[in-house]
């Protein structure tokens, strides 16, 4: 009897690959540690904190007005929405009335910001699917026009610092509204052009349909919000559910997805841009006259209380929780950042798919690292 030959086995083990903190598609300094079995993701570890600037602690040392510029830098792709959410929180805290003209301008700029942010998100998403920069460039073209309008109004393009407690900082120049009107006139054609290149593109459909699926139930359980939640089919939009400013006087519709996959999140964003254009068309014709800023003391001392205000930022429910002890600075300043909470679902969405799918899923969540780390 001949001895058994030793089994010739090929050893195979999962490979750990670091995506980031410097990687072309981590949208900043986010680090994703994936365990791969061949191309299939077995485990995904999210490592954050590379952009931590200790904003919430710093904000406790500054007056309520001085904190507004901080909010620009939390979500630097949607500064207007962040300004708005923080100002709403402080106004709720100190019970300040905002003049109607400011309310309308706030909606105007928040919606322009949504167009800019969603354009960028969709562009980078298609870029993550592998289209070589072209959609990104097309969407940058639209975003650029919005940023020009911001520059026209407050001199800054990204970190606008435009909203104030009790209104907005400046009355926009007379050439703003004609510029917005011209933009709104050409925008539907641009969206149609863009959609014709991407939405029906077979490669994009097979790359993102059924990829990164999260059911409505799981999305609610993970406390997701914004287009990621609506992509799963849940019609939850704070502009409808808990209207702020003048959204209850505006006519618009909320798009939701069918399957909860990356493609749904993509088309939901595209449709939201269309709806934003629709909202803006109503806004530019209805802005009332009057003051744009109530008189609020520079060293505002709100009564001893706490307040939480939330808005539908381009990325989801953005809330600011501010506590006052009666002094000129907040006792506690907290930001409910939608990017951070939406990101927690990434592991659930990407495990079991391939590495390429994980990248597409990350792109479809549309994170801003400044908001995750603060």
């Amino acid at each position, binding site marked *: 009897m001949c001895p058994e030959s030793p089994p010739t086995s090929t050893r195979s083990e999962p490979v750990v690959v670091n995506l980031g903190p410097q990687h072309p598609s981590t949208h900043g300094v986010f680090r994703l540690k994936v365990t791969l079995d061949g191309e299939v993701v077995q485990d995904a570890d999210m490592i954050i904190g590379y952009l931590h600037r200790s904003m919430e602690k710093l904000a406790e040392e500054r007056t309520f007005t001085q904190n507004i510029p901080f909010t620009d830098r939390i979500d630097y792709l949607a500064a207007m929405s962040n300004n708005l959410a923080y100002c709403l929180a402080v106004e709720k805290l100190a019970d300040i009335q905002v003049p109607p003209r400011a309310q309308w301008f706030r909606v105007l700029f928040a919606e322009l910001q949504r167009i800019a942010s969603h354009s960028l998100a969709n562009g980078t998403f298609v870029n993550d699917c592998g289209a070589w920069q072209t959609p990104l460039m097309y969407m940058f073209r639209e975003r650029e026009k919005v940023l020009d309008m911001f520059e026209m109004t407050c001199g800054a393009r990204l970190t606008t610092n435009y909203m104030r407690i009790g209104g907005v900082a400046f009355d926009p120049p007379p050439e703003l509204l004609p510029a917005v009107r011209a933009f709104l006139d050409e925008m539907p054609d641009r969206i149609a052009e863009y959609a014709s290149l991407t939405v029906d593109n077979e490669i994009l459909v097979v790359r993102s*349909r059924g990829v990164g699926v999260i059911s409505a139930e799981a999305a609610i359980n993970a406390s997701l919000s914004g287009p990621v939640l609506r992509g799963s089919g849940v019609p939850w939009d704070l502009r409808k559910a808990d209207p702020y400013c003048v959204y209850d006087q505006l006519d618009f519709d909320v798009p939701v997805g069918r399957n909860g996959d990356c493609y749904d999140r993509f088309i939901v964003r595209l449709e939201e841009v269309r709806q934003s254009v629709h909202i803006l068309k109503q806004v530019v014709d209805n802005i009332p006259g009057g003051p744009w800023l109530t008189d609020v003391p520079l060293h505002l001392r709100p009564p001893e209380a706490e307040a939480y205000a939330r808005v539908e930022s381009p990325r989801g429910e953005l809330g600011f929780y501010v506590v006052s002890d009666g002094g000129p600075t907040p006792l506690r300043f907290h930001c409910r950042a939608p990017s951070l909470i939406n990101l927690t679902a990434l592991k659930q969405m990407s495990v079991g798919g391939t590495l390429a799918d994980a990248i597409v899923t990350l792109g479809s969540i549309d994170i801003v690292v400044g908001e995750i780390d603060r």
Partner: protein
Amino acid sequence: MTALLAAWYDLRDLSGISREITEWVQGWGPEWLASALSGLIGSLAILAVVGPTLLLLIWVERKLIARIQVRYGPNRVGPRGLFQPVADAIKLILKEELVPRAADKWLFFLPPVLVFIPALLVWGVLPFGPNMQVADLNVGVLYLLAISGTNVLVIFIAGWASNNKYALFGAMRVIAMTISYEVPVVLSLLAVVFFTGSMSLNGIVQWQQQEDLILLLLLPLAALTFFIGGTAELNRTPMDIAEAESEIVAGYHTEYSGMRFGLFYAVELLNAFALSALMATFFLGGWWLWGLEEWVPSWLILLAKTSMVYFVLIWLRGTLPRLRIDQLMSFCWKFLVPAGLLFIVVAAVERTVLLETDWDRTVALPVMAVINAAITLAVVVLYARTAGGPLARLPHAPIMARGRVGGLRAARELAEAAGGGD
């Protein structure tokens, strides 16, 4: 002397120069010297053409991509940015070439050099005119397939020697993809060889000239398969998974810096141009264009056709997203290979009909072209209908909530109203 000058100045056939010189050497020297000299002249001519073409290609590609992307592209260095590739090359040469500590030093050094060899060898059998060809191999097609196969090895050396996970992933993907896509390319060229009865590239062009028909019209499915398979072997969008920037940074050449990276980049463009030239030769009639080659230099005709195909390549690169590796594989094995096999049967039958019957070829070939076009259309449409699965057939528009606000219950109601259900 006048005969020499006449041949020299005939732009339509630049091979006259080489022929005159070799004949002159044959007059007094040994036979081997003449052959060596003719080979040397041909190689130098190719190098002289390829170098400047490469610099121009980089500029053309960047400019065109920029136009597609609503940008200007390079426009600072020289007139219209024409010298940008030169400036880039100088910058790359001056840059430090980093070698990772864990890399295999010798193997790491080899690939950027080796990768140039197949890229240059391809041009050796390409006919630029009736006589303008460095080597008219009677197994030219086999030679080409062998050459394109060596590229895989070089890329795998690069991926392995870098000792980097991204590079290894890129190399693995290249191997899986290139080996798979070699099959449809071979099948499509087999159909070409069936019809033309020649494996020499010049023979294939001459057949098209003889029959007054470009092979694209006669064998559309083979042309499509060759083009797609070729694009895959080039690792260009939509099949650039080997260097998928958003996933694995730069694939097999992640660790290469300086001019080593520059060589990879240059060869990528050169290969794309070579593929365009092969596409033009096999399927668009090469240097022949319904008699126009009598008036216009034949190499200019080939260049024009090549540029047309190259433009399509750039266009695709600027427009399409990338496929995933499993989708690429299933596209190859479930569509291209069966379609190629089907077309081989069709081509074999048609070829036999041509040989065995004495039908008028000027009638039979156009009829076959129409039949083949119909088959191609049917195959492509059939595949397009079934590809993607049920998910891809979901509507491409979101459901509108129409004022409905809420959580899970609202979501279920909306989904039911839209006809999907959970």
